[in-house]
C-alpha cells in the first residue's frame, strides 16, 4: 500500500476543524460556555480589532515552574519506571451507564475517553499490553485479550457499547485475576475500573477477592462516575491504586489520562530482567512472501525475523518459529527521552546582558528568530548550560516538551568528544 494516503496533509489545520465539528454536533443549548470564559482572553489592539491577550511571558513562567517540578521529581525517582505494564480496563456497562448526566450518555463518554486513553497509553508504554473487560447483567465478559495493538481494542469496544443489568465488581476482579496471574514476573499488573453503578451484585465475598488481588500484586484503580463508594475506596487502598470520582467530562478525561504515564515502579512488584529481542526489517512494498501469522502469501509490508528470517505481518509479536520477541525499535526509542532528559535552560537575566553584551547573540540558535525586543534591546531568552547557545522562549518550550534534543549540543562535536574524553 501507498503510505501517502494516510498522512494528514496540513498539520494543525485539520485538528482544529475536527474540534469545531465536535462542538457543532451538539445543539446550542447543550454546549457549555460558562467554563471557558473565552471573552476574557481577548483584548483590543490599536486598530480596534479583537486579539488574544499576549500571554507569552506568563505562559513561559508557568512552563518553567512545571519544568522545575518535573526535574526535581525525576531526580528522586529517576528512570525507575516500570515500563512493561499489563493493564486490564474494566468498563462498567450496567444500566447505570445509560444515565445522561454526561452528554450524550455516560457510556458514550466512557467510550470516547477509553479510546483516547488507549492511544495515549501505547504512546507512553510501547511494550505494554492492554485487555478490555466489560461488566453487564451481573457478568464480567472479556472483550479483548491482553495485546499491544490499539486499533483492535478500540474496534472491539466501539462495537460493544450497549448496557443493561447490574454491575458486579467481584466477577470482574475474579476474571481479571485469572488472566493477570499468568503474565511474566517482570510485568506490572494493573486494573483500571470505570465504574458507573452505585452498587455491586456479587456471588460471593468481595473482600476475599480484594485480598487475592493484593496478594497477586495487582494494582487496582477505580474511577467512579456517580458518587464515592466505600468498597471502591477500600479496593484501591488495599491494592495501592487510586480512587477518584469524575465531576464532569473534562475531569473524567483528566482522571483517565492520569493512568497513561507509568506509575513509579515499586521494586518488589516486578523484577528487572534482560529480555532478548529482535528488531526486524520491514520488507519492500512490492515484495511477496508467506507470513507465519496468516499462513498465506502477502504482498508488501511485513517484517522479517532477524534470527530465522521468517515473515510476520505486525509488530510487536513473538516469532512463531523461534520464539524471539519481535519489536519495532522506534517503539522502544519513543521512551528514551525519559532516560536522557535535557537539562532546563538558564534564563539570561537582563542585567548580565547589559554587562557583557558581546556574549549576546542576536538570533535564536534554533529558529533564527531575532532575540531583540522592540528598540533593539535584548529580549527574554534562555541559554543551554552545556553548549551556551541562546534560544528564544518558544524554542525553549518546544525543545523541552517535544523535541527532547538541544540543537546546540547536537550540532557541535567538540562538546561530545570532551565529555567522552573525561
Amino acid at each position, binding site marked *: 500500500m501507498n503510505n501517502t494516503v494516510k498522512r494528514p496533509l496540513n498539520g494543525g489545520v485539520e485538528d482544529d476543524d475536527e474540534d469545531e465539528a465536535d462542538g457543532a454536533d451538539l445543539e446550542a443549548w447543550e454546549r457549555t460556555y460558562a467554563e471557558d470564559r473565552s471573552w476574557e482572553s481577548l483584548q483590543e489592539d490599536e486598530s480596534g480589532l479583537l486579539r488574544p491577550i499576549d500571554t507569552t511571558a506568563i505562559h513561559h513562567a508557568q512552563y518553567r515552574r512545571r519544568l522545575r517540578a518535573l526535574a526535581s521529581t525525576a531526580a528522586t525517582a529517576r528512570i525507575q519506571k516500570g*515500563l512493561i505494564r499489563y493493564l486490564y480496563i474494566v468498563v462498567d456497562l450496567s444500566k447505570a451507564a445509560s444515565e445522561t448526566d454526561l452528554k450524550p450518555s455516560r457510556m458514550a463518554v466512557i467510550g470516547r475517553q477509553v479510546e483516547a486513553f488507549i492511544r495515549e497509553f501505547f504512546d507512553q508504554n510501547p511494550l505494554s499490553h492492554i485487555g478490555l473487560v466489560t461488566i453487564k447483567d451481573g457478568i464480567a465478559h472479556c472483550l479483548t485479550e491482553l495485546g499491544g495493538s490499539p486499533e483492535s481494542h478500540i474496534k472491539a469496544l466501539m462495537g460493544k457499547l450497549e448496557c443493561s443489568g447490574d454491575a458486579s465488581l467481584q466477577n470482574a476482579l475474579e476474571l481479571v485475576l485469572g488472566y493477570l496471574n499468568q503474565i511474566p514476573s517482570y510485568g506490572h499488573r494493573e486494573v483500571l475500573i470505570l465504574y458507573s453503578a452505585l452498587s455491586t451484585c456479587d456471588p460471593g465475598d468481595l473482600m476475599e477477592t480484594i485480598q487475592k488481588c493484593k496478594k497477586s500484586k495487582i494494582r487496582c484503580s477505580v474511577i467512579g462516575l456517580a458518587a464515592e463508594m466505600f468498597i471502591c475506596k477500600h479496593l484501591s487502598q488495599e491494592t495501592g491504586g487510586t480512587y477518584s470520582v469524575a465531576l464532569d467530562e473534562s475531569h473524567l478525561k483528566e482522571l483517565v489520562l492520569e493512568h497513561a504515564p507509568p506509575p513509579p515502579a515499586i521494586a518488589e512488584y516486578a523484577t528487572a530482567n534482560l529480555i532478548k529481542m529482535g528488531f526486524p526489517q520491514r520488507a519492500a512494498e512490492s515484495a511477496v512472501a508467506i507470513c507465519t501469522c496468516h499462513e498465506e502469501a502477502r504482498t508488501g509490508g511485513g517484517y522479517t525475523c532477524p534470527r530465522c528470517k521468517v515473515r510476520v505481518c505486525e509488530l510487536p509479536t513473538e516469532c512463531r518459529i523461534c520464539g524471539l520477541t519481535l519489536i519495532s525499535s522506534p517503539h522502544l526509542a519513543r521512551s*528514551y527521552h525519559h532516560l536522557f532528559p535535557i537539562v532546563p535552560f538558564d534564563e539570561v537575566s537582563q542585567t548580565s546582558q547589559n554587562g557583557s553584551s558581546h556574549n549576546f547573540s542576536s538570533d535564536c540558535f*534554533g529558529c533564527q528568530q531575532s532575540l531583540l525586543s522592540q528598540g533593539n534591546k535584548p529580549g527574554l531568552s534562555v541559554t543551554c548550560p552545556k553548549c551556551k547557545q541562546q534560544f528564544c522562549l518558544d524554542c525553549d518550550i518546544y525543545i523541552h516538551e517535544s523535541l527532547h534534543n538541544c540543537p546546540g549540543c547536537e550540532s557541535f562535536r567538540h562538546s561530545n568528544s570532551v565529555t567522552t574524553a573525561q
Partner: protein
Amino acid sequence: MPSAPSKLYSDDVSLLVVTLDTNPFFWSTFSFPFSEFLSHVLAFLNSILLLSQLNQVVVIATGCNSCTYLYDSSSDKNHGSTTGSMPSLYSDLLHNLEVFLAGDQQLAKPRVNAAGGGAPPPSLLSGSLSMALCYIQRAFRSGPIHPQPRILCLQGSADGPEQYVAIMNSIFSAQHSTVPIDSCYIGSNNSAFLQQASYITGGIYYRPPHLDGLFQYFSTVFATDLHSRAFLRLPKSVGVDFRASCFCHKQTIDMGYVCSVCLSIFCEHHDKCSTCGSVFGQAQSNVPSSTDRKRKA
C-alpha cells in the same frame, strides 16, 4: 471561518528545509564531486522558489563538527544582489558555505590530532534535524496561515550510531507535528536512520541510482508539494532498516537485550543495567510465553 482559504494556501505553498551534508571526509572519498552535487542542488532550490513566489527555502549545513544555517529565502539579511551574474540564492549560499566549511575544518583540527585517524566521523545529522524542526515550529507559530513545511535531508555519509537517540527524538517530534522528512541518500549503503525517519513521518526515502541525473530525481520526486503527492506515483519504499544502536558500544544491531525497567538496548548480556542501575534477575533468554509452553508440551 478562515479555514477554507488557509487550506488552499497551505496546500500549495511549501516551506522546504534542506539539510545539506558537507562532511569533507565523505566527499573526499566519494566518486561524485561535491561541486557538481551542489550545482544540482542549487538548480533544484531555485526551481522550488520559481514554482511559487510564496515558496520558502531554508538550507542548513550538516557538517562533521558543527551545523549552521546557510540560507533562508525569507530572511532580509541576504546581502547578495541579483544584479550580478548570480541570483542572490547562489551568491549568499555559496558565501555562507565557504565560511562554514572553513570553520568546520578549524574545529576538526584539534580532534584529528587527538584521535589520530580511525574511521571517518559521521555528519551531525541530529543537529541539523533539530535545527530544522525548531525553524519549522517558528513557521507554525506565525499564525493560522503558514506554508506547508517539509524537511529534505541530502545525506551521503554513513549513520553515526551515537546519534541514535537524538535522531529518533527528532523523528518523533516531526511525526507529532506532521512534518514529513524526505531523504535523498547518495551513499553506498542505505541509511537506516533516514529510512526510519521517512517511514515514520510519511516522507519519501530515495537513493538515486545515477548521480549524473540528480536534478531530474530532485525535481520529479522531491519538488512536489504535499498536496500533489497524493496524485502521483512516487517511488515505493524498498524496505525499512529498523535496526537500533546498542547503548554499550554504539553498534548497530538487529537483535539484542532490552532492560525491562528502562528499555535500554544492549548487544550482549549484562548483570546490571548501565542506564538505570537495575540488577537483573536470572539470565533469561526469552519471555516465557503461552506459545512457548504449548510447543514444549
